[in-house]
Every structure is written in C-alpha cells, then in structure tokens.
C-alpha cells in the first residue's frame, strides 16, 4: 500500500472528525435537553448508555459498531441496500466511530450549559406565547450557546484523536480510513519512519492544544455571561 502524504492524512482526519461531530450534534443537543430538563423512568439508564463509549474499551465499541454497522450487520446491511451507504472499511465508518466516541463529551458539556439556563426565563418566554420548541430555539439554546460550542470543540478533538474504535471498525487503510492517530501507529512500527512520525506527532499536539484552548476560552465566556 502506498503511504499517503502528511497533508492528505490531516485533511482526511479533519473530514472524518468534522462530519462525525456535525452528525452527532443534533442528537447530542436533543439528549442533553432530555437529561437536563426532563425527569422520566429510565433517565439514569439513558445517562449511562450515553456515557458508555467513554468508559468501554474502545476496541469493544469498534467491534460492536462492526457487528451492527458492518455489511452484514442489521443496520449496516440496510444502509447499504437502501441507501447505497457503506460504512465498514470506509471513511464514512471512521466518521461514525468518531461521532460515537465524541458523543458523551458533547452531551456532558451541552447538558451542563442547558442546566445553567434559568427555567424561570423559559417560563417568561412561555407567557409571551413561545411554545416549548420556540422557547428552546430562541432562549435556551442561545443562552447555552458557549457551552454547546465548547462541547462541539471537545467532541471534535476526541474525534480527531480516536484510535481504538476506528481501527477495529474500519481498519487502517491509507487514503480511506488512515487518520493521524492510525498513521502515527503505523510509523511507530516502522524504523524508517522516524522523521514522518515526529512531524505527525507535532501536528497532533498542535491540533489538540488549539482545541483545548478554544474550549477553555468558550467556557470562560459562558461564565461571564451569567
């Protein structure tokens, strides 16, 4: 297999992380709202399921993804037949793995942000004629926005560095599923790859550092707004 260039590896990583984050954001917001604002039977169970990818060995998550979303998996088979969308061993699958692994971090941050919005302000919106959906869109979400963005940045950073679930689900294919983390892993096995290895490590540190600074800055902005 032909090794890919640094630039193409970075671009693929960003694409995978971006698509994964974007896809999981609407669901993350919905689940965060549910956990923050509703009390129902199974609240704790849903909370635990959301956090599962954070504590499960990533190889387990990757294997389960393969079984469910692989070509012969229940959902994967359907997606391929009905929509022509293949996930296993494709960059789309890497994006799904990224989405699943970043999801708990996003839900956590967004839930905290929603919990900080005073329900009394939402009640005021209701007395002015705003339905629950409109109240959420015009009051709750804008007030929680810095927290939502912080969640997005964290989820994105996690997606960018994902390794275990990705390699199990979509393998390590240069140009298709080989993100920065997977490329680094390959280079650690290759004595001739020392220079390339350090280049990718530097890029990886720079990306992670930027994401953390951004999320920290947003969190501070959120505090000032309250």
């Amino acid at each position, binding site marked *: 297999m032909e090794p890919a260039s640094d630039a193409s590896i970075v671009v693929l990583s960003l694409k995978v992380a971006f698509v994964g984050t974007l896809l999981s954001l609407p669901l993350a917001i919905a689940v965060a709202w549910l956990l923050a604002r509703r009390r129902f039977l199974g609240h704790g169970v849903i909370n635990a399921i959301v956090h599962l990818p954070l504590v499960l060995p990533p190889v387990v998550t990757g294997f389960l993804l393969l079984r469910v979303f692989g070509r012969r998996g229940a959902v994967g088979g359907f997606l391929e037949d009905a929509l022509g969308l293949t996930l296993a061993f494709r960059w789309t699958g890497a994006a799904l793995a990224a989405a699943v692994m970043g999801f708990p971090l996003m839900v956590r941050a967004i839930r905290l942000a929603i919990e900080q919005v005073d329900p*009394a*302000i939402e*009640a*005021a*919106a*209701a*007395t*002015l*004629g*705003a*339905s*629950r959906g*409109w*109240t959420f869109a*015009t*009051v709750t979400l*804008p*007030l929680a926005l810095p927290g939502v963005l912080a969640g997005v940045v964290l989820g994105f950073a996690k997606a960018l560095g994902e390794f275990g679930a990705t390699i199990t689900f979509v393998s390590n294919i240069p140009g298709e599923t080989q993100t920065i983390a997977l490329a680094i892993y390959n280079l650690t096995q290759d004595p001739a790859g020392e220079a390339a290895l350090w280049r990718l490590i530097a890029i990886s540190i720079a990306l992670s550092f930027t994401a953390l600074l951004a999320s920290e800055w947003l969190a501070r902005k959120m505090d000032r*707004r309250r």
Partner: protein
Amino acid sequence: MTLDVDIREPLDGFTLKVKFSAAAGLIALLGPSGSGKTTTLNVLAGIRRPEYARVLFDNDVVADTDQGIWTAAHTRRVGYVFQDSRLFPHMTVRHNLRFGRWFNRKFKSDAIPEAHLVELLGIGPLLGRTPLTLSGGERRRVALGRALLAHPRLLLLDEPLGSLDQARRQEILPYLDRLLTEVKIPMIYVTHEVGEVQGRATRVITLKPEMEQ
C-alpha cells in the same frame, strides 16, 4: 372581559383557596408573604398546574382540571410582569419588547401600538441597551412593555414596586397610572402593601393562609 377564578392548591402547611369573579379594572391581590399570591399568578399564567383549578376568561374555559382541561401557558395570552423582571439577557431591550409579537401576530388589531407604549413607559432611550445594564426600575418598565406587546387578555403584576426604594417607586407609579387609563384589559396586582393600590384598585382580594384542621 370577565374573569372567573377558582383555585385550590396545598402549600406549605395550608391549602391555598382562591375564588373570585371580576370584570375589567385593577384587581388587587393582597396578603402576607407565603400566602400564595405568586402561586395564584403562576396558576393563572399556566406555568404551575395546581391540584384543582377552574379558570374562565369570559366563556373561554382556560382551565378546568376536573375535566382535564389545562391550556398551555403559551396559548393563554396572559401577560406576566414577574417580580424579578426575567428579561432575556441575550437580547436588547428592543428585542425583548418584540419577543411576543411574532407568536401573537393574529391579535394585532386590539393592541397598543409599540411606539406609543414605548413613549408611555419612557423607555425610548433604553431600546438599544441590554438588560444587564438597566436599573431595577428600568427593568420593570421594560418587562411591563414586553408583556403588553404580546397582546394579553389579562395582565399579572407581581409586586411591581417590590424591592425598589422610595425614589424608584415614585419613578414607576406615574407610568402605572398612565397604563391603567389606556389599557383596557383586567389586571391583577399582587402586593403586601395596601397603600400601593389605594385609589387604584376596583376590587381587593385578600389571601389569608389558613391552617389545616
């Protein structure tokens, strides 16, 4: 509009019971702290569902919990000036004022024009500012304007002068009096000081917390 209210809700150590009928004008709701005044307003606004409530606006049954009728707060058209104003911190005064406009656009005809109300409340110079930069008295006036611009059928005022010093009260009272002559909908004015409503109220209802037998 005539208003028929019958509410029962167990509170801390006693059961709140409010029952009255009233026509347009200023209805004063008096009583000491903890007598259920704000609870009554919350039930009327639809943001608290009590054990029992039957509320009629003219012939419109807004709530009848025995029949399972409970109109959602956002479709009741009950304006509410909260004690703590509750302005939206992420919007300017202008956007706060216009918040209810879109949701109640069907009811435009019977409303006070925005420009007139802004003048009446003296909040013209505040329109571009955000709530965090306003004084307590300014916030009350904006909250009053915001509630009225949503075209309510009934206006609830929860201690509109509460936690304001004497000078601030004197700042708000003239605006309230002007509104009373211009706004034709019934208003319920909650206070624990009779003096505030003397000469203004067309009806006085006093809540007394009664201990359970």
